[in-house]
């Protein structure tokens, strides 16, 4: 698997680790697993008689047999899920009432028919609770929502909010638009921050803003405010140091490429630029 991951990374030198993982998972979900399931031989399913007989013998049986019973149950569960997913891959929706009513009415179809049990409020059916099953497991009553164990979820993956956020607040936004030198710096700061922190797992919110003092007319600072959910103080301090270093590096890069006319403007922006980490009150 490592070799494959390296192969993918080599084919996409510009992609971040997150991008590769995301695309890899999406490819597994959308291409590989459906394809494998479609092509795989059907799982041999134990007959109902086999299962019942194993269940009755189980209590007095030696350990080896008990293990075999457990294994039969496991395979039986797996076959059910497998059939279920295969039927979905055949583009039959779970909500297709006509299909499912036919399934329930004509159990002769059962060799390829996924079996459903009603979802109970407190428990789910599985092989280990077989003894408590009062009705024929092959003709379950169809009362409530269909339940199956989604060992492969067919639903869209829930997208959690990105842990990294970068925003430019007003009035800085307006200044950025009208000042090409400041725009270059802010743009480079954003690029460097995204490069360094997009893969962060701890929530990190960076906001660039202008802070002014009403008492002192021309007192104005450009602040990169850092809000990190890092609980460890030392780690938090290290995030701050990294952000600060990236800001300085971003300005230095712009300074290097700047024209002689732009340099004093950059120096003045540099003097006004600060980073600020918010700490929870003691």
């Amino acid at each position: 698997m490592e070799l494959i991951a390296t192969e993918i990374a080599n084919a996409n030198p510009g992609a971040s680790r997150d991008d590769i993982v995301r695309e890899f998972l999406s490819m597994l979900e959308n291409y590989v697993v459906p394809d494998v399931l479609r092509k795989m031989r059907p799982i041999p399913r134990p007959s109902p008689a086999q299962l019942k007989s194993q269940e009755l013998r189980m209590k007095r049986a030696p350990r080896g047999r008990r293990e075999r019973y457990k294994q039969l149950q496991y395979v039986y569960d797996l076959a059910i899920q497998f059939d279920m997913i295969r039927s979905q891959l055949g583009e039959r929706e779970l909500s297709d009432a006509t299909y499912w009513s036919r399934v329930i009415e004509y159990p002769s179809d059962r060799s390829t028919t996924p079996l459903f049990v009603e979802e109970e409020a407190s428990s789910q059916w599985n092989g280990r609770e077989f003894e408590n099953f009062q009705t024929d497991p092959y003709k379950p009553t169809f009362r409530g929502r269909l339940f199956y164990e989604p060992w492969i979820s067919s639903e869209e993956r829930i997208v959690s909010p990105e842990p990294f956020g970068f925003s430019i607040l007003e009035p800085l936004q307006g200044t950025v638009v009208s000042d090409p030198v400041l725009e270059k710096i802010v743009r480079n700061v954003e690029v460097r921050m995204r490069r360094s922190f997009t893969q962060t797992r701890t929530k990190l919110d960076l906001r660039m803003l202008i802070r002014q003092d009403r008492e002192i007319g021309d007192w104005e600072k450009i602040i990169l405010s850092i809000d990190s959910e890092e609980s460890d103080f030392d780690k938090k301090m290290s995030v701050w140091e990294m952000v600060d270093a990236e800001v300085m590096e971003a300005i230095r890069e712009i300074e290097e490429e700047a024209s002689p006319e732009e340099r004093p403007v950059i120096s003045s922006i540099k003097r006004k630029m600060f980073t600020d980490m918010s700490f929870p009150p003691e």
Partner: protein
Amino acid sequence: MKSQDIFQVLREDIKAAAKAFEENDFDEMNIFANRAMANVIMGETTKYVLPGFFLKDIASVYRILNLRKVKAFETAKSHGRDYLKSLSNLLSDFDERTAWEEYHKFDLRIRKFTMSEIEESAYGENLSFSEGALEWMVQYLLGNEQTLLNPNNRFLKGVLNEIVRIFKVHGGSLRMDVAASLIEALDRCYEYLEVYAESASNQFDEKVRQEIIPYLKRIADVVLTPKSDEEIDFSAVDAVLWELVKKWRECFIQYMERPRAELPAEKAVRIPEEAKKKISESLTKALETEVKLEK
């Protein structure tokens, strides 16, 4: 239809588009832009077609930037926000020249965000080349109008692609923005003529000659006659744009969205076929081992 009612609805469409922009929902923004155009064609004021037309372009620019995961996306959005603000201010005293100039200003600012790092480091602004290229492209379009009679051509898209590429890399004048906008509007109408190419009576040639080719000359006139941006006759430009947008929205009412040949979506990461095969094989093997019963 009362002009003030249309104006009121236009304001609301712009407000909705601005909200969608804030939420990075550029597909929704595109829909609001379409609405802004669809609503104003029910009136008579030609210049009211501009906000919707520009908003649609902006939605498409940011949609692409977002998909490409451009690293300076928030900085790029500052320019969009600024433009949307200017558009809202413009509505209180709608001047068509200002509307075009503001859009051109936005287009010039955003172009560097659409460039790759290599492009940005290698190319500099060259307005003189862009001007020459624009004139060449428009003349080329006029000189090869017969290509449009072939139902399989992508001529308007091709010309547009060149103009947009040159503008992006070398910069450009307001004239260039006007040309690109008009050709784009014409192409949207042209796409609908495919319905005739598919019909048994095959009226495609006739429709192209009647409804598309005459606009080539009109576009060339409004774009090439002025020798500088100051000389552009915006009433004439807006009149052509209005007619094209009206035609396009009417086509939408009659035929709705046309299915189009889609290019495969650009993916950030490419999984080599060989890797896919290896993963499939190892997964199949693992699953089969998993369900194998003891003898």
